[in-house]
């Protein structure tokens, strides 16, 4: 169906249109009057209907953040956009428009019902984020590739699908294909899929589906493996010892070291390197293990602290609740007597009593809070000391282990130097009879070059080790300060919040009492 929309003036979604729609569709009758009195906030609107409005472009809807249902059917929209902020949308109707491709739906993760009926869409895609999709209508479009249906397999909750009126429906196996590839589907083109059709489809496509499933499974397994690896790495990173449980660090030493590669051609060097590597890796491994152990220790310490903190807070809260409960009983009784009292004298005394009670409540609650603050401060300080200690010990030990690495490197360096000089001497004396590549032989022109080359390699290695050490220590210390700061800040916030709450509550009570007073006098 081709619409002659050129002949009609396209409409724009503006304030006026929205206001009208909201008012029309808002609460009716008595509630409507109330609503009219104070106006409706676009923010609170739950559902909106903008059909038959000749809208060309979706716009100005960013205010409707709590919208769950939006109807934009029977317009002349050409492109889906401007819906990014409507994250709570559950129901979206874009039927009878001129949309050409599916797009701009990435933020609508809560969408369950989507209608794109009667548009000009040729391909289904770009809907990956709609994980909750249950009902999808894309009839009367120009979908022409049956294989495109396979795209819908990712929607685990999809139960109803409408494809009627697309070119693909002309294909003879259309129904069987769809039922076979979407086994969870219950309704196709608004008709219940019967068991017979399902069976036929299953038998017909059983091999291709089997293959498909196999592929999907493999992808799934791969994904899981990757995730497991990532998780493992995350764990190591949390202990600040990532890539220390193997030859990674050692390999990184030689990654950018050209000289070392050249020197490796010297006789005796490969063996030397081998022993160096095993020793180095062993040290790294012990560092790694130590790191994990320390991580556990830190975790346990933090957990213990939070447990105690939680206990203290719950205890305090229970006391507070009880105080308020007791108070409210007395308070409501007093209010009742005031309400029923006839003499002004009695009312006055009771009022005073009431005010006193409120003051007393305030005092008790504040005392409780202050007491808690003091107690917590002590506990937090001790925690701070302990955690800093633990981190300090960790840093010290790490430094020790790193020093071991450095020693190994120095040792290796000496040996290498010795071999190099020997080789040089041999070459000088022309006693060296092994083949060497030309660039390696070029090193041994004179002593300085050799020593420089070996020295450069050594420097690179030391730098690498230093860097790794620095990285580790910086990270762990920053974690330490971060957690201590967080504990302090949390406590501060909590305290502020509680004090505010108490004040607010007491203010409310005071207010209530004052208002009471006023009302009584009028009577």
């Amino acid at each position, binding site marked *: 169906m081709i619409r002659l929309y050129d002949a009609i003036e396209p409409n724009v979604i503006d304030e006026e249109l929205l206001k009208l729609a909201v008012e029309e569709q808002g*609460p009716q009758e008595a509630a409507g009057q109330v609503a009219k009195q104070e106006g409706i906030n676009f923010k609170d609107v739950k559902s909106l209907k903008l059909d038959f409005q000749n809208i060309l472009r979706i716009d100005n809807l960013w205010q409707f953040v709590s919208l769950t249902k939006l109807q934009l059917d029977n317009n002349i929209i050409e492109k889906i956009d401007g819906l990014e902020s409507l994250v709570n949308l559950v129901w979206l109707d874009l039927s009878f428009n001129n949309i050409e491709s599916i797009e701009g739906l990435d933020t609508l993760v809560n969408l369950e019902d989507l209608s794109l009926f009667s548009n000009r869409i040729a391909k289904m895609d770009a809907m990956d984020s709609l994980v909750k999709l249950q009902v999808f209508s894309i009839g009367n479009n120009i979908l022409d590739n049956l294989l495109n249906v396979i795209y819908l397999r990712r929607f685990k909750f999809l139960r109803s699908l409408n494809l009627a009126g697309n070119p693909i429906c002309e294909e003879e196996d259309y129904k069987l294909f769809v039922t076979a590839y979407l086994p969870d589907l219950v309704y196709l083109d608004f008709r219940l899929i019967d068991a017979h059709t399902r069976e036929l489809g299953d038998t017909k496509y059983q091999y291709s589906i089997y293959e498909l499933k196999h592929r999907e499974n493999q992808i799934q397994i791969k994904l899981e493996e990757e995730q497991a690896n990532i998780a493992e790495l995350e764990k190591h990173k949390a202990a600040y010892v990532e890539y220390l449980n193997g030859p990674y660090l050692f390999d990184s030493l030689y990654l950018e070291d050209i000289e070392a590669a050249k020197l490796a051609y010297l006789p005796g060097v490969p063996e030397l390197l081998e022993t160096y590597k095993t020793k180095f890796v062993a040290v790294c491994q012990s560092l790694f293990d130590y790191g994990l152990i320390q991580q556990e220790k830190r975790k346990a310490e933090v957990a213990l602290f939070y447990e105690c903190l939680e206990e203290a807070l719950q205890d305090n809260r229970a006391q507070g609740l009880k105080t308020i409960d007791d108070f409210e009983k007395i308070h409501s009784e007093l209010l009742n007597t005031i309400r029923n009292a006839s003499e002004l004298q009695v009312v006055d005394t009771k009022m005073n009593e009431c005010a006193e009670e409120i003051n007393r409540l305030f005092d008790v609650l504040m005392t409780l809070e202050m007491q808690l603050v003091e107690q917590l401060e002590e506990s937090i300080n*001790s925690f701070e000391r302990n955690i800093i200690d633990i981190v300090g010990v960790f840093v010290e030990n790490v430094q020790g282990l790193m020093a071991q690495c450095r020693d190994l490197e120095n040792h290796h360096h000496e040996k290498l130097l010795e071999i190099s000089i020997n080789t040089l001497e041999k070459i000088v004396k022309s006693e060296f009879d092994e083949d060497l590549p030309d660039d390696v032989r070029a090193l041994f022109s004179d002593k300085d070059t050799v020593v420089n080359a070996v020295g450069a390699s050594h420097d690179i290695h030391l730098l690498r080790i230093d860097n790794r050490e620095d990285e580790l220590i910086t990270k762990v210390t920053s974690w330490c300060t971060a957690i201590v700061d967080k504990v302090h800040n949390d406590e501060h916030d909590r305290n502020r919040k509680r004090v505010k709450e108490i004040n607010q509550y007491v203010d409310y009570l005071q207010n209530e009492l004052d208002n009471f007073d006023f009302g009584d006098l009028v009577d």
Partner: protein
Amino acid sequence: MEVLKEKIEEEEAAEREAEAEQAARRAAEKEREDTILNQEELIDLEQKLSEIEVHIPEDPVIFSKSTIDTSTLPPSYRANSAKEQLLLQVADNFARQYNHLCPDREPLFLHPLNECDVPKFVSTTIRPTLMPYPELYNWDSCAEFVSDFLTMVPLPSAIKLPEYLFSPTSVLKYQRGNCFDFSILLCSLLIGAGYDAYCVSGYATQDLCSMDLTREVCPLLKKPKEVAEEKEKVVPKKYTIKPPRDLRSKFELAQVAKKEAEIIAAQEKKRKEEEERLLELDKPPPDPMHGLRIHAWVLILCGRREVPESFFIDPFTARSYSTQDEHFLGIESIWNHKNYWVNMQDCWNGCKDLIFDLGDPVRWEFLLLETEKPYLSLYETEEEEEFTEDDGIENLDKEDEENNFDMPGSWVEQISISPKDFETRCPLGKKVIQYKQAKLEKWTPYLNGNGLVSRLTIYENVDCHKVVEIREWYKNREDLLEMRQVDKVSNWTTEYFKPGHFLALRVHIYKNMIPETERTMEFYYLARVDGLVKRTETSRSMTEYYEGRLDFLAYRHIDYGIRTKKFNINSADSNPRPLLKITERFNRNLKQLADDDVAERIFVVSEERILLRYHCREDYITTSKREFQKSNDVDNKGNKIIMTPDMCISYEVEPREHTKKLLFQYEMMMELKNQERISKHQVWESEMEVLEILKIREEEEDTHNLTVSIYDTKRNEKSKEQREALERQAQEEHMRQVEAELDYLAPFLVQLPPGEKLTRWQALRLKDECLNDFKQRLIDKANLIQARFEKETQELQKKQQWYQENQVTMTMEDEDAYLTYCSQAMFRIRILEQRLNRHKELAPQKYLALEEKLYRDPRLIEYLKVFV
């Protein structure tokens, strides 16, 4: 002598009765004289009356040899086999030696006479039997059965061993026995069930010997010992906050504590004194024959059937005692079905020091040298050997005799209890046990029409005059009532029900059955759609507790006002109590924010107010609140008010924007108004339900039907009928078969000379005769039907004629009678017509069938074959 005593007793009793009657009469007369007796006098009178007691002497229970019918007993009861004779000789020998060695000890209980005056060794009287009832597999229920099943008969002499010991079969048959009979029977059952059980002959206290439980607390009243929960000491964690400083004076605290301790100590002392006093009261009067009273009971040794520790069972009361119990004063001997042991240990301290190691010959002298001696430990074997050397002659003797001699089999027939007896349990189905301050009555199920199976009456004190509480247990009731507890002091009745009733009632506590009075009903809430757990009522309020509801309602409390008088009493609808206030509490719904989740909703109906209290947020101590005031729809100027800000006062823990809006508040109020209506309706429904329940309960209490299991073939009337019907049917079927086998040729064959072979001519004739006869019969039958048909038609015509003639003068009744007659006659005629037609249709077929049959008949077949 005894008879004389009895007579005297009877006379005395009669006198006392007469006296009592006189006293009562006097009292009654006195009462009549001054009708306005004041309360005190009444009480006094009651007291005096209650002092007058009437003792009706019971028939002394006699269970002796003369009551037993010995004629039907099998021969093993009446004579001894050769082996038994030998055993008796051995026993005599043993007794002689024993007498010689221990001259100051009482004679042993070895071979009393049985019901046929034949001496039988006690071990052979035990007949180990495993009963087919699963209830009798465990010692506790088994002992209970024995104690219930038999009636206790005291020993002829309390301090002498009985002369007779009857077989368990006779005991079971007559349901009576003394302590030895009880023990033998119980032992037989227990050994049969696999326990290592022994009969014990010894001495016990008077209470035990006479089955007197009046000094024992009823086991049903014993409170389970409270397990003292040890509070785990909380180890203060590293970061546990330190408690705030205690700023009170330590000295003052100490002083206060001291004072309190003193008071508590004083109270404790008082309590202890009181307890001691009570204990003193409880103590039995001193018994002159203490320690001499003979008793028999059962010992179960540890080891078999996972019994961890040896213990005694008193067969009279089915209670178990530890072997150190002070009720048991000494043991002479013990025996099971295999052997007999004499206790050689000193019993100066009762049974407290006894060691039950039967393999130890120093402690337990055995009669037969058993092959299996499981208790003999190694060093004791050596000891025994030494013993043998020391006392060579005696033991050699014994071994000579007893080598390869084991206990002969029991002379008693297999013990059997019929299912009916087993179910009836107590003789005549009733048993009464008197406990300390309590009386327990037991009945067989179905004996009482209302399903009562036991009743426990608890008295105020030991003299058992004033009833404090009655507990009654029921079984098989259709209303599933299980137990009823009536507190006589406060008049509360508590009824407990089993699950499965459509009312789902679990407990019902009430004073009376009048609605709107104090009562509590508890329900099986899982069986109810609304999840009601409990409903408590008083005349001015009703409280309901719920569980597991989808709307999270947990509690509803309704306050009622006083009924106002209505003037139009004629109107049929009831006058409900005015609702003052409905309080509803809800559990936390985690799907909602705490600030949106109502915790308490109070509809103050009388003041047109609605109070809402919300759940408390985590980490907060105050809760949001809202109060709605429903006011008139029209203000003083006549304008319609929909919603004003002062109609809703709210406190919010954290002020939010949308809740300030009038629209929000208005919608909430509308919703609440709706809720109020629903709540009111639910309250009404609850009231209706209470009325309904009370009505049904009353009806059920009146009818008190009992249910019968479909597996209970004896009581189940329906299944009985069905079974009988089935039997009848089977019989009828049988009859029909007999009939079917009737020989249709017989009447014709009789005419021929018997025993001769048929000639072909004869056979043909026979066939023709038979067929002709049958044809005649068919024709006769058709004629008969026709004749009846014609008769009916004639009669009908006659009647019609008569009707037409007398139509004018006829009464309505006559006319009616005529009409019914007509229709009936027409019916008959039509049936006859149908029958005739059917006969006409079937007759040729029948004829052909008979012909066919005759051709097939084995007697005729050879002659008729040719024609076929």
